[in-house]
């Protein structure tokens, strides 16, 4: 019992936990402290004249939450809704939640400082770079760690489709 407790503490002190999600073949990590909930795909009500990457709003237990397509925000192909599609509910501030559509949620990983590199790109003008806070290495795979507040409030740069 003691041991488990200790190990748990150790994990929090030494690293951050990330939820790993997939968009196509790429893996992205979202800091777990911002994640309020993960829900299955729901009926999305379109909002006219919104930013193109906002798919609309959903009703989550009586709360109305705007839903953003990460794919459209990043300038990728539009979402194809499958059985694996999930909406991740993010809460940056207590009063305002926002949903992010991803292809699939894979796992939760703990990354410590050593396994995180600064985000770099061969092409410095890569529009995606502004949304990343770093790149994590886990089991020989690379996880792009999202700077979630930049993703949500950040203006569209050159990534408009």
């Amino acid at each position, binding site marked *: 019992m003691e041991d488990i407790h200790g190990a748990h503490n150790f994990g929090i002190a030494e690293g951050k936990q990330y939820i790993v999600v997939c968009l196509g073949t790429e893996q992205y990590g979202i800091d777990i402290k911002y994640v309020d909930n993960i829900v299955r795909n729901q009926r999305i*009500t379109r909002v*006219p*004249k*919104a930013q193109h990457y906002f798919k609309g709003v959903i009703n989550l237990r009586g709360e*109305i939450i705007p839903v*953003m397509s990460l794919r459209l925000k990043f300038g990728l192909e539009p979402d194809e809704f499958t059985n694996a599609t999930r909406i991740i509910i993010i809460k940056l501030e207590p009063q305002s*939640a926002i949903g992010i559509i991803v292809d699939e949620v894979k796992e939760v990983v703990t990354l410590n400082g050593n396994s995180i590199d600064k985000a770099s790109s061969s092409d410095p003008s890569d529009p995606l770079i502004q949304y990343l806070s770093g790149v994590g290495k886990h089991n020989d795979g690379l996880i792009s760690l999202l700077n979630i507040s930049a993703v949500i409030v950040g203006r569209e740069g050159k990534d408009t489709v």
Partner: protein
Amino acid sequence: MDVSQYLEIFIDETKEHLQTLSDQLMILEQEPENMDTINEIFRAAHSLKGMAGTMGYKRMQRLTHDMENVFQEIRSGNMTVKPELVDVLFRGLDALEAYLANILESSDEGTEDNEEIINTLNGIADAATGKVKEEPVKPAAGTAKQSSVAKYDSIQVSDYEKNTFEKAKAQNENIFGITVYLQETCILKAARVFLVFKALEELGEVIKSVPDIQDIEDEKFDLDFSLVYFTKETMEKVKAAIENVSEVHEVIIGPFSFDDTSGPKADAEPKASMPKEPEPKPAAKPATAKPAAAQAATKPAAAKQANSKKQAKPAVGRTVRVDIEKLDVLMNLVSELIIAKNGLVSINSAESDVKNDAAAFNEQIEYLESVTTNLHESVMKVRMVPIESVVSRFPRMIRDLSKKLGKKMELHMTGEETELDRTVIDEIGDPLQHLLRNSADHGLEANDERIALGKEEVGNIYLDAYQDGNNVNIEVRDDGAGINIEKVKNKAIEKGTLTAEQADHMTDKEIIDLLFRPSFSTAEQVTDVSGRGVGLDVVKTKIEGLGGNIECKTVLGEGSSFIIRLPLTLAIIQALMVELGPEKYAIPLGSIETIEDVMVTDIKSVQTKEVINLRGTVIPLIRLDQILDIEAGGEDVDILTVVIVKKGDRLAGLVVDNLIGQQEIVIKSIGSYINCSKMIGGATILGDGEIALILEVNALV
């Protein structure tokens, strides 16, 4: 004795007594012989004295004691009420309000003795009762104008900031120190400062401000503030940009030398001339019969009060006084709710045949429905406060303005009992005050001018509140000169807001709307045109923030009126549900006039816009499916369903595919991240969990 537990009661009751005093003094000024009024004032002063004494507020007690004394003399017939006396009493009232404001803030009355008011009061009482003691009449002291000092010189700079400055200098940026003085009449100071900052940030960067941003937002400053500012622009351009903001009294700008911080000078300077807080104005100004001086003396107190209102009130919480009857109704409804719930439970557990169940179930649902509707209404009513609590201070304000401006004017108020949501009431005071001041200052002509025009000498200002469907309208009206549309138009062209051709095509209404544009409301410029436009942009922003709108009507030579339209309830409304292709939308019932079936062949085209002629009125058609980018699903039909909506006196027809029905909906926000247009006022969740968006008719029409 620990009296802190009584503080809230004390504050509440003091407020009531002060309001009584203010109302009765207004009457007394008109009818100096009215014995009822005199008695009423005596009683209020007496109660105040007792309460202040119990709470240990000695200064407040002393002032009320002397006010009471004066009325004792009047009551016993030893002296009569003179205009000078009323003036002094009003100043005493202001002083009491200042004490109260202090108490609200820190539960301490402050240290202002108001010696001068007390002396004057006693002087009048003594003089009247025969003790010969001439009232000291001295010439009016110079008006309390602040000397315009370049206060930015005394801004202190930290080492870190100095570094930034050096870097900026290396990049050839100019570093200016700026001190801005606002006009004394400015009401929404924080908003003005915000506009100044906004203007500045377009040209460069504000590095430091004194007082700091937080204090400015909280209005914890007097009439001036200072900045350190980086820019590539010239001094003249920056100055012009600031002066373009309304109600700015003076701008002082000069190069800012940050080297001052090194050496002994830095130590000496802040002490010598650190006028962060303006020196306390000598409130003890010699008493004079001149109303102007009285006005000046009341200023600091009033300003202080306005400031403290904005700050957090640690001493007391925000409360609403609720009529006990309203609470009883609520309690009853909750019991009924429980009965309804029990009814449903018993249907569920009772073993009976299915057919009976369904009937009983429906009955319970209906019962539940009526209970929840009533409950909603009652809860809303608890939140409703009569508008009187805001407008009751206006007669006094108009009285003061009348003396200050030297114009005779009268304020007529109706509908003070009209109720509005508490949150709206809290916010509506400042905009109304602004409009009233506008009317008094610029709307009404001078008395002799009025006589020359054949109008009655005394100018009239009207404040009418009334309910209109789901809205409450508040109208501020005057019978003054009205707005000269031609002059506004010319000014707009002169200022480059419009080209001459544009102006020719604009309707009078559109021209008047210019006054609400931020760029247009530069005080001085408009004052010499028509006298309107001071701060109207701020008023408009505030009203729209409350979900309302403002409209101006004017007739040259006959006066103008500003109509504020505010929503009655904020959270739950009746709405018409409509279908557009596969989507559902809600249209607030309050803005719907009628619903019409229109033959496609009846649609006419005027200037490429579709209109219909409905019983003699030409109404523009709005194709919602096009505006809202809805994929056209239906085939062409011969008959369109058109929902006729109104905004003010303008009508428009919204083309919809299908009507679903009327429904009570709960308005929910769709959050700040999604950048939807103003056409969507929110969303609501329907019975089946589906979301319907609420159309904002005001933005569509």
